[in-house]
Each structure stands twice: as structure tokens, then as C-alpha cells.
């Protein structure tokens, strides 16, 4: 089963590599990955979907939390979380199929973002399964091309984010930080 991991991390060069490195060093293939900055431009939010064996999932999360650039890594597979994805579908149409394609798009709440004589580019959002269905339906109208965004996740948990305070020079680490909950 796919694991969905949500990370809050520093928006710094190499931070992405450290996170993905923990997965690639075990030979895990990343199914999807999205990353973009948060309200605080110095931080990024990343969502990773990856197939990790159940027995080591907790270990992977712990190791991600150990990374110095990672503020918080959370397993949101079991929720509570909203997981959404966006897909762009380029579908070729002829005069006969145009109306039918638009009707199908409407059922999936997809938007037309480009329209030409050759066809449409449709944009749909939803959970991944819904998008799979949408893609299947569109495929029945002929050749299509797609670009998926990968899952973006929003945790609905009220877990407090604990950040380490600034460290004055010369202070022993033990005197400065007490994060044990």
C-alpha cells in the first residue's frame, strides 16, 4: 500500500535530496512528489507518495525527522488529512465527439483550460482514484496525453509544531534545548 508522507522543511538547496535520499538508499521508488513554498517563504511543504513496507514506515519517518532541514515529517496515510491531486488531460476531438467530451468533463467537475479545433485541455482535481477514472473515460474518446501533479496533502491533525529555539554561541546543547515531550 502507498504511504503518504507530509513534510515541512527548510527551503534550502539540497533539502529535497536529503529526503529523497532516505528513500532511494533503500531502493524505494517514489510514486509522486510535490514541493512548494509555504506562507513562510523560507519553508517548503512536501508531499511524497511512496510504497514502503509497513514494518519500516515508522523508522523512515523518524529518520526524516532527524534531518536537520526537516522541521516535521508526518505519516498522513491513515489521516486525518485531505489528499488531492490535479491532472491536465489533452484530448483530441472531432466535431462529433466535442459535446460528449464536454459533458463527461462536467460530470467530473473538470474545467476547460484550452480549446482548439483539435480538441481540449481539461483540468480536473480530486483524489487519485477519481482522476484515474476520469483519465479512463477520456481515453475512450481517443488518444490522450496527461500530466499529473502528484498528491498534495493537508493534514487535519492539530499536532503542534515544535521548533528548536535559537542557540546562543558557547551554550552546551543540553542547556539550550529541551524538546522531550
Amino acid at each position, binding site marked *: 500500500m502507498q504511504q503518504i508522507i507530509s513534510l515541512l*522543511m*527548510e527551503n534550502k*538547496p*539540497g533539502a529535497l*535530496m*536529503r529526503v529523497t*535520499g532516505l528513500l532511494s*538508499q533503500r531502493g524505494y521508488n517514489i510514486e509522486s512528489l510535490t514541493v512548494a513554498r509555504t506562507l513562510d517563504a523560507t519553508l517548503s511543504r512536501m508531499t511524497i507518495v511512496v510504497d514502503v513496507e509497513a514494518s519500516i514506515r*515508522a*523508522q523512515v519517518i*523518524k*529518520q526524516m*525527522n*532527524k*534531518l*536537520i*532541514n*526537516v*522541521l*516535521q515529517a508526518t505519516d498522513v496515510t491513515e489521516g486525518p488529512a485531505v489528499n488531492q491531486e490535479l491532472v491536465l488531460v489533452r484530448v483530441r476531438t472531432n466535431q462529433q465527439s466535442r459535446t460528449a467530451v464536454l459533458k463527461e468533463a462536467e460530470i467530473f467537475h473538470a474545467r476547460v483550460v484550452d480549446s482548439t479545433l483539435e480538441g481540449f485541455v481539461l483540468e480536473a482535481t480530486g483524489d487519485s482514484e477519481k482522476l484515474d477514472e476520469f483519465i479512463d473515460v477520456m481515453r475512450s474518446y481517443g488518444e490522450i496525453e496527461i500530466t499529473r501533479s502528484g498528491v498534495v496533502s493537508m493534514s487535519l491533525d492539530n499536532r503542534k509544531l*515544535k*521548533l*528548536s*529555539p*535559537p*542557540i*546562543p*554561541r558557547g551554550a552546551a*546543547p*543540553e542547556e*539550550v*534545548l*529541551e*524538546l*522531550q*515531550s
Partner: protein
Amino acid sequence: MSSNTLSGAKILLHCLQREGVECIFGYPGGVTLPLYDALYDYPVKHVLVRHEQNAAFAAQGYARATGKVGVCCATSGPGATNLVTGLVDAVMDSIPIVALTGQVTTKLMGTDAFQEADTFGITRSATKHNFLVKNIQELPRVIHEAFYIAASGRPGPVLVDITKDVFQGQAQYTPVTEIHLPGYKVYSEGHGGQIRRAAQMMWEAERPFIYAGGGVIAAEASEQLRALVEALDAPAVCTLMGLGALPADHPNFISMPGMHGSYAANMGMTHTDLIIALGVRFDDRVTGRLNAFAPHAKVIHVDVDPAEIGKNRHADLPIVGNLARVLPKLVAELKELEPSMRDKNAKTRQQWWQQIREWKAEHPLKAEKSDSEIKPQHLMAEIDALSGGRAIVTADVGQHQMWSAQLIRFNEPRLWINSGGLGSMGFGLPAAIGAQFARPDKLVFSIVGDGGFQMSIPELATIVNHALPIKIIVMNNGHLGMVRQWQELFYNNRLSQVELASFPDVEKLAGAYGFKGRTVERVNELSSALREAVNEPGPYLLNVKVSPFENVFPMVPAGGAINEMVLRPPQPVEV
């Protein structure tokens, strides 16, 4: 150029001085030229090694002998890639070092410039954390962060890759007064409730067993460990990385557990009902087959790194914290509970001790001796007698390492220096260089095999250069002994590429470098030869020819449970 600006190279050296760096192990090159030019005017000591890998190992030797951050330095490209083994080694054993590497000028990066390598990418998984500095303004902050990260929490290596234009640039130097690492979590105190429950569990246990590791040494918590051991009066083992955490002569010290651990240590671990795991990671070399490890035991696991808890073995009671902080609280709780709990299991505990003593007596770790040849174990016993538990001993990797660990006593932490997790051959000699620089007052033995020694020969020049009085003892069995042992036991004795057929005449080799060397083959000369080495004011290279086919026992075969030890060599069968 304003007069109150400094070059990046000078700023770096100011930062290093501010971190209290006394000595850098390094090797110069093209892009670090500006740094080495600046170094010319600074009091920071630089030790010129003969290979960058040895700079990393020497920095580790320095760090392992003192607990301070060791520093190594290399140029871009091959210089940086040569550090990698030493960095991974430091990750595995949680050793605080900072590696400084030069990088090609920013505008050449990514063009396959001369001596360019993606050091930042290559060392990502070879470090606790790494930095790439392309902006001179960031340099002071990054250097301070690097030292802080290396030394705090679970220690480890940090690499700082610095471009040549940063070394050459000019900037105002503003010392860093504060850093902010919002995502870096250092756990220290331990959970009070958990500590209380742990003390309760310890008194309730009938057969408690303390399993202490390198984490105790990293936390400088040896005294506190001793207090715990005595408060509970429980038997204690120290892992390969933890030797010296509890004095070897302490009556509660059993020895080392694991693949080449003692019978008593492994039987104790198998039969205990409570493992008190302190700064350990349940390494496969300790646990043997995991599902057969300590089958009757509950586990209290104290570690500074939350990712170690429950990684290999479920912890019934986890405590995340610094051992130097947690252990005194545990001892206080134990003492508070003592009046009501002391007598609870007094009888079973006595029986437990009785059982441990029987196991110890049944199969003690003792040095074999022979009249006709020098047994390697005999060599270690002689070194032990000279050391008296107080000399620094660095080991390389292989049979000699295991015999040293089994038979040489360490009565203080930071005396036993070896490559535990990674098992890097070529570690022993350069580590001794770092250790001797750190502890000029100490007698330093570097015990190496004839294989590992030949990986480190160039460093004899460094030793002579600095007149380091290191006693290099080559345990020469003419083989890659540990590999040969496995081929013998598990590959039908098909000895493939393990014979080291030629070895230099050490008298001539040491002589060529300008110091004394000697080969000893006869049993009756061993003791005097070792004394001669120790009495020599300078370095000494002693090549000890030992029985070539001796194997390390006890041994837990790979995949075996640790109570399924092979205790002695199989006897020849009459056909």
C-alpha cells in the same frame, strides 16, 4: 577594498580558532591554495598527512581520544572523494568531525572543471549533515553550525564544501553569536515518568543485565554508568564501541557480547529478563539472529537518537535523552526505591550472579599460549600487561581487532579506538596519529594486521615528521585472517586471495623512514621485544609473526543465535 575586510580564507581560520580548533589534519591542493596561503600566518596547527583518507581517520582518532571535534581538510575532486570512507566511518560510529573541502569557483561548478566533483551530493549520505558555501557572508554561520551539529545530540561528521571564490573573496568578519536550526532536535533530559518506571522495572527484574555501548562514551557518561551498575549491582557488558565505558577491572564487568563476545556475555544476554540498553543500537554483530536474541527479556532502551529506539528490537520502555543527564536521574530513582525493593528479588539475583560466575568460569576469555610459536592471543595478553588498562590502543579491522577487544583491558573511556560499524581497514595507524596528537601524554599502541598496515604505510612519514612515539604492532599472520577464517569455516577451506605472500622487511622499512623496526618470531623474545618498543622514546614498528592459522573464538556463525557459539576450533578427526 576596505582595510577592515578579510579574505574568506582568513575568516574561515578565525572561525576555526573561535571553535577552539588546535589542529587540522589535511592535504592541500589547487582550490585550497588561498586557504593554505592564509594558514601560513595563523597559529592553527596543520598536520600534513600522506593521503586524504588518513586525514579523516586521524581527525577521528583525535575526536575519539578526546571527545572534541576533529577537523580534516582536503581539496576539491579527488581530495574530497578520498575523505568519503572516513566520513562514512564516522557516521557509523557517531564520531564528531568537521571536514572542510575546497570546491571549484562558483561559475565553473557543473562544467566538469579540473578537479571538480559533486562533493555536496556525494557526501549527502556520508555525513550527519553537509553544507555548500557559495557566499562568503554565510561562512561564519555555516562553520559554527557545522561544529554545533557535529558535537551535539548524536555526534557525527559534518562536511563544509567551500568554493574557491569564497576563499578569495573579501568581507567584513562578524563573529556569529547565535545560530538557528529550527528543525534540529536535540533530546537531552529524558521523560521523568519513564525514568521512574525504568527504575521500578530494574528492581522488579530477577535477572537484570546492562548492555552499554559507544553512546555512553559519546555522552561522557562513564562515571554515571558506573553509579548505575553499582546501585543496581547488575552484571554489565560493553559493546565493541563501548569498551572502557565501564572499567574492565570493575567486578560487574563481564566483557563484550556478540559475534566474538564471551560465553558469559552471550549467555547472560540470552537468559536475562531485563536488558538495560544504554547508548547502543542492537547491531547485528551483537544480536546475532534477531528473533532468537534475548528471548526472555524486556528492554529498557536509553538513547539520544529517537530513530534508534525500536529499530531492531522493540523497546518495552524507551527513554530518549542524553545518558549523562538520564543516568543520574535513574540512579536517584533507584536509590529512592531501594529500601522498599532491595529485598524483593535478592535471592534470585544472587542466583543470577552465581549463574554468571559459572558461565565465566566455564569458558573464560583467556590467551592461548604455545612454546613453539607466538599465538596472537598471547601477543594481546603481553600488550595488556604493558598497558595495565591505561594505554590508548587503536586497532585496524579483522582478527587482531577482535583479539584486542577480548583480551586487552580498558579501564577508562576513550582508550580503545577502532572502526566498529564500518569496519574500515586502514583505520588503525592514522587513527593512532590523531590520538597521539590529542593525547601526547599517553602511551599509544597501534595494533594492526599485516593487511591493514599495508594500506597505511605512507603515514609512517607523518609519524616520523612529527616524532610521534606510536608503538606500531603488526600482528602478522601472513593472511587476511578474518576473511581466511570465514573461508575456512564456511567456504570449505577454499582460501581465495587471502594470503599476503610478501611483506616488507620492517627493520629496513622503518629504517628507510628513519626509525626503529624489528621482527620477532620466537615466543621467548616477544616480551622483551615489546618492552624495547615501549622504552624507545620515538616511534617503533614491531612486526610480530604469529601462528598463521589461528581463528577467533568464541564465534557466532552469521545468522546464528548468540547462544549458539562455536567455542573452540573443531578438533581434527581421525579417519
